[in-house]
């Protein structure tokens, strides 16, 4: 009985992480389509991410309910719930960023296109590494730090690309308002990896707590 319930919640957690991971992959694809001015494909990805975000929210709530209702993992429950909530924030942020693109419709000059794509890929990869780290937190706590290391690596990479992109934007001849608009979107994309980094910091502490 207890084991059956446990398996169900395990499956829910796995589903939740799959959703977030998929969100990360779709994010970089959506940005690529946007930059390439393929609006149809961009919208399709954006709507899919929006759907995934709702699913993630629902799954998170269900998992929280189950953990509380059956007083499961009493010692690490607080940490697990924080992990789920913070991970959920990442897909929220991805959805929000794509929405900003859709609403404000920034015009990306051709010379910056590849850097926006690069930045989106680095951010997406940091999310993917983080999700793998979270999976390991549940199953193989010793390997968590290997994945967190990758999160930090991708986040640093995203920082560098963002800086390069912003410098290029402000060194260009376009209008200041346009420059500001482009900088604002570079920041948005970069923020996804920042979220992943913040979450990685917390996860490393939760991991240490689990090992004590």
């Amino acid at each position, binding site marked *: 009985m*207890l*084991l059956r319930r*446990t398996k169900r919640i395990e499956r829910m957690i796995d589903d939740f992480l799959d959703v977030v991971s998929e969100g990360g992959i779709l994010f970089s694809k959506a940005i690529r389509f946007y930059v390439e001015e393929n609006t149809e494909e961009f919208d399709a990805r954006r709507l899919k991410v929006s759907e995934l975000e709702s699913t993630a929210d629902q799954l998170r709530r269900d998992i929280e309910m189950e953990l509380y209702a059956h007083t*499961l*993992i*009493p*010692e690490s429950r607080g940490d697990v719930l924080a992990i789920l909530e913070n991970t959920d924030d990442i897909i929220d942020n991805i959805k929000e960023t794509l929405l900003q693109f859709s609403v404000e419709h920034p015009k990306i000059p051709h010379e910056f296109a590849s850097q926006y794509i690069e930045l989106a890929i680095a951010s997406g990869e940091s999310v993917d590494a983080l999700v793998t780290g979270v999976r390991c937190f549940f*199953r193989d706590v010793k390997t968590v730090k290997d994945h967190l290391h990758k999160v930090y690596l991708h986040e640093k990479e995203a920082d560098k690309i963002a800086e390069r992109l912003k410098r290029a934007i402000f060194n260009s001849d376009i209008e200041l308002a346009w420059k500001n608009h482009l900088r604002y979107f570079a920041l948005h994309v970069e923020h996804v990896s920042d979220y992943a980094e913040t979450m990685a910091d917390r996860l490393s502490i939760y991991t240490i707590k689990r090992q004590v």
Partner: protein
Amino acid sequence: MILLIYLSSGLFLAWSLGANNAANVFGPAVSTKMVKFRTAAILTSIFVILGAVYEGAGASQTLGKLGSVNALGGAFTVALAAAITVAGMTKMGLPVSTSQAIVGGIIGWNFFSGSLTDFSALSKIFGTWVICPILAAIFSYIFYKLYLVFIVRTRIHLLRLDALTRFFYLAVTAFGAYSLGANNIANAMGVFVPASPFHDIQVMSGFTLSGTQVLFLIGSIAIGVGVITYSHNVIRTVGNDLFRLSSVGGLIVILAEAWVLFIFGSQSLHDWMLAHNLPAFPLVPVSSSQAVVGGVIGIAIAKGGRNIQFRVLGRISMGWVTTPIIACLITFILLFFVQNVFDQKVHNESSYDFSRNVITELSEHDIDFDKLEPLKGTSFKNARELNNFLSGVDQYSMEEKGLILAYGAVDPIEVTTQGIRIIQNDYLSKQQLSAIEELDGTTYKHRWQFVQALSDASDAWRTDTGNKQKDDETQERLNYIINHFRIQ
């Protein structure tokens, strides 16, 4: 009613054992919220009773060897002194264990009654106390390493590990409670065994509880009451301090503790090891708290040996010496009061007499006749006087001294028609009963003479048939008959 008053100190000790020490068995399960208090308390109570009744005799025999408190008043006082020692030292924040207090109490009684303290039994007990936390540390170290291997190999999900931990907590709590009952019932009830007024009772057809088991059953019920009524407070106040470990860490510590209590308390394991020519562990009541501390240290060492508070170890070893000494002093003083102020009998005089037939009997037990010459015709008021005399002569081995004490002890027995009439008929076999009837009207100065007369009258009274179970049963019945016809 009088009996209940006499037993009250032991029952109080049993209650406090349940209230305080049972937390060592299921405290982590409750404080880490893995098992509900109600479930843990009920499970613990049931298994403490099973362990005490089924396995408790071994450790109490070791206490009996240390000193046989042969009057109910004495047993009451010894248990009371132990309870006072435990309560007082706990109040003062000193490390204390019921096992150590009761041993001190028995030694105090030996001093008061002029009985001899068996130093080989004492050294065995002391050695076990030292080994107990060390063994618990070794066990928990091994269990922790095995757990790490299990975690790495299986890559078990956190939630499934949680479910498994809950299941194992129930199993280990039951095992720990069983071991606690087996090992620690002797602390509360052991001193009452030699003076126990209980006879065997038939519970169901083919299932009999011996007098000692009845005594342990009552004691373990008191432990159960302690668990249910008070242990929750103890877990709330000290449980979390003792176990600042994860739920799995707590589980490993109790498992290690349960094994230590089991190997030093289980009569069946002891018998099994002897039957397979393996070195058996001595059956000695040990401190569950110290086993827990040992277990925690084992895990700390397995994690790299950081944060070990060596002061705690110093305090434990101090308790091995100070607790028995304090309990011994309190017992001596209390015995004096109970005997002289309340006019209660706290010990039965055990004088020694070496008439010709005792000397002859001793010489048949491979003691050189010349060696026995100085003893001829002597008599002694108590064991200490006899021991001083034997030490003065200085020619006897420890084994010979033991035989001289056993055969010289005056223990008058009279078989009367009235006494035969009120024997529990269904407890003895027909042959055993008719052998007793043959001895109607006879009197004996020494216990061995009566035992010899019985086995001469019928083979049904022999305790050397080689069938251990049968011999043990005959011995139980023999003890009952001796108590029955003993002239008080």
